């Protein structure tokens, strides 16, 4: 069921995290261009992650026993909001912190938890997501990668694709078939915690339209995995991957991807002066939309803090939020197109150009718009 989203306030002790994070980011990012910062969670910088971890800001909500800070989801909201609004290069640890470590804590053995989670919190263990395959995108249950039992472990073959930083991460959590055939759909799937250094594993980056290399293709060519590479229960992969997707989708990162651009544009207008009414109207509209989305995301955060699993509500925020992020580059570009030649700073133009090209991905990564609307329709009782 779709619950009503009510206004939620950030508790003062969590809000207090904001100033130190802002100060840290102002210093670290002072020399980074807006176009570079516009990559936000696609920007990879292991040194940045290490510095963040030294502050205790990787694994903020994870238990202290495993190296985390045991802070509330509201503290994580504040941290993430600041990181994304500033355009910090968080990709190295992003997936590990958001979904892999929480998933291991939920389904892993004590040994797996001890081995992995503290290293994630130290900013030393980076993860990638092994869901999509060349023939399995939205239809995730149709994956064909396959692991078979062999003496002392598992033998894995298949291909994962669009794997964000698969060529740089240390580990992958992969959804693969361990019994039956693709027609068996969500039965016979399992999740594996794969050390990407294992023999038989190769990863090749795929260049995107902006010339960046974030996602990749990962091959498993009869890779031999140890017994304890299995994560959770054999055959429970479908349930587990849905729990992983719930971690992936419920954070506040689906509304801020174009924030660096908005700030660059607002700064440009403030510097230029002579505002037109059309510019004021656009600024006001964007602010009203952000405000509503931010309050929606905070409301989802409150549900997480109350121990609920707001899957449908998070889908609402993601679908509406990515639509908002995607609308911004075109709207701002259209305004800039009216300026005289040579007036608009090159950095602002580069930021518009980058986001204009890449914004279609906002509503693909983490599940497409159509998949999310299906989830919402089910929440409304239509399916």
């Amino acid at each position, binding site marked *: 069921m779709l619950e009503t989203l009510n206004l939620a306030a950030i508790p003062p002790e969590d809000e207090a995290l904001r100033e130190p994070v802002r100060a840290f980011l102002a210093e670290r990012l002072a020399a980074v261009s807006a176009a570079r910062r516009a990559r936000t969670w696609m920007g990879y910088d292991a040194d940045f992650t290490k510095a963040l971890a030294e502050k205790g800001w990787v694994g903020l909500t994870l238990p202290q026993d495993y190296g985390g800070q045991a802070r509330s989801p509201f503290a994580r909201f504040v941290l993430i909001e600041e990181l994304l609004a500033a355009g910090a290069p968080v990709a190295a640890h992003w997936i590990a912190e958001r979904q892999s470590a929480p998933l291991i804590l939920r389904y892993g053995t004590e040994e797996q938890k001890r081995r992995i989670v503290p290293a994630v919190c130290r900013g030393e263990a980076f993860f990638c997501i092994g869901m999509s395959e060349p023939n399995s995108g939205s239809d995730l249950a149709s994956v064909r990668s396959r692991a078979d039992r062999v003496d002392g472990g598992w033998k894995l073959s298949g291909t994962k694709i669009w794997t964000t930083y698969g060529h740089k991460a240390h580990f992958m959590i992969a959804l693969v078939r361990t019994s039956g055939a693709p027609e068996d759909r969500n039965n016979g799937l399992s999740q594996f915690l794969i050390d990407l250094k294992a023999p038989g594993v190769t990863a090749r980056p795929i260049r995107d339209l902006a010339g960046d290399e974030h996602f990749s293709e990962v091959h498993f060519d009869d890779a031999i995995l140890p017994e304890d590479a299995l994560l959770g229960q054999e055959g429970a992969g479908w349930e587990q991957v849905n729990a992983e997707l719930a971690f992936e989708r419920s954070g506040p990162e689906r509304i801020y991807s174009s924030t660096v651009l908005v700030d660059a544009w607002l700064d440009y207008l403030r510097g230029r002066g002579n505002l037109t009414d059309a510019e004021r109207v656009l600024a006001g509209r964007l602010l009203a939309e952000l405000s*509503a989305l931010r309050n929606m995301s905070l409301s989802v955060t409150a549900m997480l803090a109350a121990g609920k699993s707001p899957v449908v509500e998070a889908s609402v925020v993601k679908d509406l939020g990515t639509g908002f992020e995607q609308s911004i580059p075109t709207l701002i570009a259209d305004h800039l197109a009216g300026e005289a030649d040579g007036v608009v700073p090159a950095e602002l133009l580069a930021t518009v150009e980058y986001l204009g090209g890449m914004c279609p991905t906002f509503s693909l990564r983490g599940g497409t718009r159509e998949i999310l609307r299906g989830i919402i329709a089910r929440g409304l009782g239509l399916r």
Partner: protein
Amino acid sequence: MSDDLISEQFARLLDGLPPDDPWPTLQESGFLDLLAEASLEEVFPLALVVGARARAPNVLDAMAKRLADPVPRALAATLAAGEMAGALEAVQALTVDYALTRRQFGREIGKFQAIQHQIAVLAQEVIAARIAAQAAFVGAPAEVSEHRAAAAKIRCNQAAVRGSAIAHAVHGAIGVSDEFVLHHYTRRLRALSLSHGGEAWWAAKLGDWALSEAQDFTSLARAL
């Protein structure tokens, strides 16, 4: 009395009003003087109740006039946003209900993915409108924030346009028949959209503030 009980009592009052002359009953109820004592947080559920009733008299306007006449535009816009959120919730309920009962091609139209996805978007707009309105219902009615009112009215106006269009599309021809209730809501949504400042008017005001403050975009949203 808890907020829930007050809004239940208020709903019963509205539902039992004599249709020919509702005002004496409303006056006796004491509700019209509510804005002088209550906080906007307490008024928000009542605004939703008014919005959810297709043929309710202009109770919120009457309440506001008792507080100040002429009513400050920010207060009027805030109350309108709350009423619009309530109307949109009712429109969503009607639309889901209709999609689950109307059958074509041998099944409920709500089983078609194209319809499901449109209604999913409607639900998103309703949620956004409701929380945007709620965010403006803060503090004493006489001191309502102009920037919050702006953000609420802008977002509710957007939702009214998008949501009404979807509701009418899903309802087919019956949605524009006089007998069917939908048009009472969508007419009221259009009227409220155009009352107390439209989207562009409020957006220019909010944008003017945003551009005059030396703050980043996210901080501006937090400051609302």
